[in-house]
């Protein structure tokens, strides 16, 4: 139970912590007020509670595929939000910048709802098994500690980069998280037969198992999978390109409007 607990909590906390760290750095670079973070955390906590209470009912929907469809939906929504964040954070329009805190808040709230609900259900279930409580909660503490520490170090690591690299690195990391969201949503939809099975592209579990700490870190950061299917890889590429192309379009728009203004003067 100890190791299971470490693995599950680490995976959930690490994903959320890395996403939040990157968004916090981006928000600081864009000189936005960090109030969106508190709002996102509170909404995420409420969302996680509501989702965990109703997940049993939800899982019975759509011929017992409700849970997978809902989680995949949340992941696709997070991908959509990351695409908009990429577009708006590079755009010159004041209105775009103005809406960024709302987008970041919703993005954090959705991510926390999903991760939090899984943690609440897991730890809640363990409470009925008295003999497993101590190892499980010790494992949860270890997993949460590693996940949060990695998030804090990523935050300070990004801030210590040369100023001109911080913004590009944040966008790149958001694009990688976007790819992970698309890939994981595809996996869930494959499990409920909403997406057809496709051949496994490679098996690197001998070199870097998914359940090792580097495996979890890479999963949360770049969506590492030891045995990815073809459709997962395609979805990953689409998710990555969506965020990176939207950020590039926003930048081009910014550049064009600046040149136009200079030309007019």
């Amino acid at each position, binding site marked *: *139970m*100890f*190791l299971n607990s*470490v693995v599950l909590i680490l995976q959930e906390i690490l994903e959320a912590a890395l996403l939040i760290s990157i968004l916090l750095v981006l928000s600081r670079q864009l000189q936005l007020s960090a109030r969106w973070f508190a709002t996102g955390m509170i909404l995420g906590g409420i969302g996680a509670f509501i989702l965990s209470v109703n997940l049993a009912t939800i899982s019975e929907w759509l011929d017992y595929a409700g849970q997978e469809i809902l989680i995949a939906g949340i992941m696709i929504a997070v991908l959509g939000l990351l695409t908009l964040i990429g577009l708006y954070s590079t755009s010159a329009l004041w209105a775009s910048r103005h809406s960024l805190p709302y987008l970041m808040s919703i993005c954090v709230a959705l991510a926390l709802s999903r991760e939090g609900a899984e943690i609440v259900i897991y730890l809640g279930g363990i409470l009925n098994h008295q*003999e497993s409580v*101590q*190892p499980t909660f*010790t*494992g949860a*503490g*270890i997993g949460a*500690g*590693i996940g*949060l*520490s*990695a998030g*804090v*170090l990523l935050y*300070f690591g990004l*801030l210590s980069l040369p100023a001109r690299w911080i913004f590009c690195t944040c966008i790149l990391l958001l694009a990688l998280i976007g790819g992970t969201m698309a890939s994981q949503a595809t996996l869930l939809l494959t499990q409920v037969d909403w997406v057809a099975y496709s051949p496994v592209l490679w098996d690197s579990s001998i070199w870097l198992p998914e359940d090792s*700490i580097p495996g979890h870190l890479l999963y949360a950061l770049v969506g590492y999978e030891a045995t990815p299917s073809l459709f997962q890889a395609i979805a990953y590429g689409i998710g990555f390109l969506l965020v990176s192309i939207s950020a590039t379009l926003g930048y081009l728009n910014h550049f064009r409007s600046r040149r136009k203004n200079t030309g007019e003067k």
Partner: protein
Amino acid sequence: MRSIRLFLIAATLAVLTLFNFVAALQGYSSSLKEANKLFDQHLRQTAELIARLYAGHPIKSLDDESTLAYQVWRGQELLASFGIEHTQPITDFYPGFGHANFDGYRWRTLVYYDQDHRNWIITAERTDLRYQLAESVISHAILPILLSIPLAGLLIWLIISHGLKPLRMLSQQLKNKQADDLSPVVLPELKSELQQVSQSINALMSRLEVALNREKHFTADAAHELRTPISALKIQLHNLEEDISPDNEAFQQLRAGVDRIQHLVEQLLSLYRSTPEQLAHNFCRINLHQLAQEVIAELHDKFEGKQQIAELAGQPCMIEGDPFALTTLLQNLLSNASKYTPAGGHILVTVNAEENTVYLKVEDSGPGIAPEDYDKIFKRFQRLNNKPDGSTTPGCGLGLTIVRNIADLHRARIEIERSCFESGTAFIVIFTRTED
């Protein structure tokens, strides 16, 4: 990173947690391997013990609380068993360790062949019970590492806060310095890292003090020295006025030019006198309302010359201040109001008290100042193009700088808003009230 302390505490704690917890996980994996070896050794010892003890008589049990199970077989005949109800062998008769699924559980098994009695002894243990036992022991060992993190966090916070104390003291000293205080920064205990910073700050302060003194004295000396020739010029102008027609245009311009120079010199001297070191020692209790009345009376000719109506409203209010400086402040505000108000316009001076403050409000019916220019007007030699034709009103641009200097010295703040007239500006100087 806005706070060095926050960065150091968060980063140190994160590194400590990450490395400690990863090390704990590695420790957990190694301990689990060692525990499995111990359990396997126990299985072997039990099998050997059973082989030695078993001499044709069945052994009833090893230990009532044992998690182990065993079977003793001779050929296809089950001679003895413990912990298992079924009469089938738990696993195949191949000597050595292995795993088997039996009776709804996963088992770790050891098959041992006793050659002396030709018996097969199978000892087995449920893997879930094994893990539970091992996990309980190891997680108890890991728990203190987890619980020590908040304590480590508290200690790190205390140590870093203590370590950064000299830096905090240095910043506090600089923050608490008055605008005119250029004395060296002195720390009780100078750490080697801060030695260079402290030396550089003190050297900068010293250079700044010398430069400021030089500038102030140059301005004051130059203004003072210019007073005598300007007075001589005024006498010569007076003499000239008797010889030529007073309507002579060149003469009028010459007189206006000399008046401007005289005003500039007087203002430069006022600016010098409004510096902290010149004023700090002359504070006394003053009735601001009465002072305003005296200054309005003093400037009566100026208002009359432009047919302006100057009024005083409010009530007697006491403040702590320098009479000479406050007279200069009132003179400058009222002269400004008169200068920018067209002929026949209104100027209203109000002195009143509000809770713990006393305010002096000078309102005019001039063209007014655009809000974006509010900050600019207090800069030295700054004049605004506020005439309808875009030209500037004559002046040296020092009046409001002097007003701000004097207000700062009295710890008063200045606010600007629209006047109560149709157009125009209101300057409000807010002082701390002294009990009547």
